[in-house]
């Protein structure tokens, strides 16, 4: 039992330590900002003569 516990713990740790989930979310936040700003100014352009 103790052995099994140890095994599962190691496994989750390895998975977690090499994960780049946070990076993916972070860059998509950057992407979201770029799109929102661009669309915002584009609508300003459309609204003005």
């Amino acid at each position, binding site marked *: 039992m103790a052995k099994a516990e140890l095994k599962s713990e190691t496994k989750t740790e390895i998975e977690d330590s090499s994960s*780049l*989930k946070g*990076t*993916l979310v972070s*860059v*998509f936040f950057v*992407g979201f900002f*770029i*799109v929102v700003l*661009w669309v915002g100014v*584009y609508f300003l*352009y459309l609204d*003005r*003569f």
Partner: protein
Amino acid sequence: MHMHKFEKIWLIFGVTALLVFLSVLGVSAFYLGNQPPSCLAVVDPTKVDEHETFKEPGLKKVEGKDWDYELVFVAQAFAYTPGTVEVPLGAKVKVIATSKDVIHGFGVAGTNINMMVEPGYISEIVTTFDKVGEYLVLCNEYCGSGHHLMTSMIKVVE
């Protein structure tokens, strides 16, 4: 060269977004005609006053063109001629400008009318004045010590 799966996802997203931006701009520019002001016509900067278009600055009604009026401005340090002009609401107008001396900027605050005015070149842009109001014309390219005093006013009236 190895690339992480998430980086590929990110780059595909990024490149797609850029392509969408470019497509929107391209269709608007080349299909709908919303090009940035890019007139390729020239004029002798020392003979602006004798030029057909520029000898009488101001608003003129025109016939048989895609636009109803031509609004002509002459830029010279540190003034725009005319200093104030009224435009009827809804008029489709070609704004035309040139400079008699150095480079000026023709910016109309709160609108998309914004173009460089350079000696020797004619700058033009076509637009429909569809909102009533007083729009400040100002020089937005440095032209000398009186640069910030160089203005005009376009009044869009009903």
